[in-house]
């Protein structure tokens, strides 16, 4: 594993857009809000940015060109990323590699999507109601059998996990409840009402074993970060957060092959990130885990080595994921409650926790090391990021 890059680069600014229902904006408009906020946060100016690595709704062609035009930035290096929810950490990895290769020096990475507006703004939108552009959907072996939506694909894995390891619905509920409790402390979160186990279990059935509260919540929103060298970071406004480790792995042979439905690409992606960082799972102070569905948190807790395979359910149910627990996770409320922005807000939250500048009721005390995960393409692709207070 390449340890030369360990702590050589840093995240020096973070930003996010308005979050929730923002019908007066667009996916690109939201991303512009987040990116300008991130540059401001870093104490930099437009002219300092010379690279963009980003993603938006997957039907915007050459997305980086569009956002570059809006922001008035010509780039030494720019591209859009096409790796689903694994794209956002991958953007940061690509930025580090590009800076290290001397192609650029200050990179803006971000993601934005008008997911709420796309699925709710009109009756037509409510009917169509898919966030995957039609031309990108499979034309066979899926819809004709009644298989629709990401929830069902992931529920296949959740059911297998339950049958194989005895994972229970209540254990999945403990994930949703913990993250909702965190969201209640976050004024920007979309769903902040407390959630109890009885209400969780009574959630509207979606696709067994998932009910409403097992599924992330679609919002309009965007997040962004600024990446540059640790050396340059020393002169900037904010305490830098060092990029201590990263990893990727993509199960391109498919979701249903082998045991991938219960043992995800997080295992190999995470092992690489820990090796680069020179850290063990027990040294992580807070985890921001890609929570498209409750069961995927359980599987990743195992795959990252925070507990043994099959023990993710009991681990979550022990209260470990709560603020004050052994591994405070998704401390902004996660995609299950704060809002689903494809993992971008988990990166922002990981940086804020490692900077240690959150309000006291939200801050993981003494957090030095934060792990962030991202997966996408129905959990085929995975990226991992380990951050350290600078």
């Amino acid at each position, binding site marked *: 594993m390449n340890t030369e890059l360990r702590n050589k680069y840093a995240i020096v600014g973070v930003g996010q857009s308005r979050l929730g229902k923002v019908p007066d904006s667009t996916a690109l408009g939201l991303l512009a809000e987040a990116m300008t906020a991130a540059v401001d946060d870093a104490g930099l100016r437009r002219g300092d940015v010379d690279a963009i690595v980003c993603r938006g709704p997957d039907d915007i062609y050459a997305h980086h060109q569009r956002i570059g035009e809006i922001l008035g930035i010509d780039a030494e290096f720019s591209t859009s990323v096409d790796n689903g929810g694994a794209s956002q950490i991958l953007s940061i990895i690509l930025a580090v590699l590009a800076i290290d290769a001397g192609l650029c020096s200050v990179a803006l990475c971000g993601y934005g999507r008008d997911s709420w507006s796309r*699925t*709710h703004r009109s*009756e037509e939108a*409510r*009917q169509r*109601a*898919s*966030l995957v552009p039609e031309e990108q959907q499979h*034309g*066979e*072996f*899926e*819809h*004709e*059998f*009644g*298989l*629709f*939506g*990401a*929830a*069902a694909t992931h*529920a*296949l*894995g959740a*059911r*297998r996990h339950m*049958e*194989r390891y005895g994972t229970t619905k209540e254990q999945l509920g403990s994930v949703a409840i913990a993250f909702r409790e965190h969201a209640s402390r976050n004024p920007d979160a979309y*769903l902040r*009402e407390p959630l109890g186990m009885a209400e969780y279990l009574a959630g*509207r*059935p*979606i*696709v*067994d*074993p*998932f009910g*409403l509260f097992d*599924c*992330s*919540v*679609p919002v309009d929103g965007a997040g962004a970060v600024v990446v540059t060298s640790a050396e340059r970071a020393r002169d900037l406004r904010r305490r830098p957060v060092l990029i201590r480790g990263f990893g990727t792995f993509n199960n391109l*042979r498919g979701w*249903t*092959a082998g045991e991938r*439905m219960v043992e995800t690409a997080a295992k190999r992606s995470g092992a690489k990130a820990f090796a680069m960082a020179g850290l063990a799972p027990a040294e992580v102070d807070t985890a921001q885990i890609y929570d*498209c*569905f409750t069961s995927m948190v359980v599987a990743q807790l195992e795959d990252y080595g925070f507990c043994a395979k099959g023990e993710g359910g009991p681990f979550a149910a022990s209260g470990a994921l709560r603020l004050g627990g052994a591994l405070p996770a998704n401390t902004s409320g996660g*995609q*299950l409650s704060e809002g*689903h922005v494809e993992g971008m807000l988990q990166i922002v939250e990981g940086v804020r926790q490692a900077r240690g500048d959150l309000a006291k009721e939200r801050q993981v005390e003494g957090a030095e090391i934060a792990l962030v995960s991202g997966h996408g393409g129905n959990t085929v692709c995975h990226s991992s990021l380990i951050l350290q207070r600078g």
Partner: protein
Amino acid sequence: MTEATAGSATPRAPSGTKPPRPFPFPKPTRDSQPFWDACRAGELRLQRCANGHWRFPPAPLCPECWTREGTWERTRGRGRVIAYVTFRRVYHSAFAPLIPYTVAVVELEEGPRLTTRLVGVGPDEVKGGMPVEVTFEPVGNDVTLPLFKPAK
């Protein structure tokens, strides 16, 4: 809480007034057309390369050995349930009358795994590992679907 909808899932389908959407017929490709032709003839045929590796979904070469040569070989049409989900809400109006219905990943005795819908078994009776066999259901437009039912 009524505003919360199922994340990467989709909002509740409006009830009542809208006409049902057309059935989402498969769109065969040059690679998959023989699969659908065989189903119409009441046979479950998959690609098998010259070196004996079965494969699914249909592809232009064998992912194990990259051999392009091979045939469409008839399977026994028997396998076991690897994973399954039961749909409790409507995603597509063509399936509304079937709710609750169960979609499963079935591993055939020959090895490949197929996504399919289970018939002849209630959602609460399905279990992982359950043996199943193919049954063919014409759905119009000259399309026949390979569904699976509990094995005799």
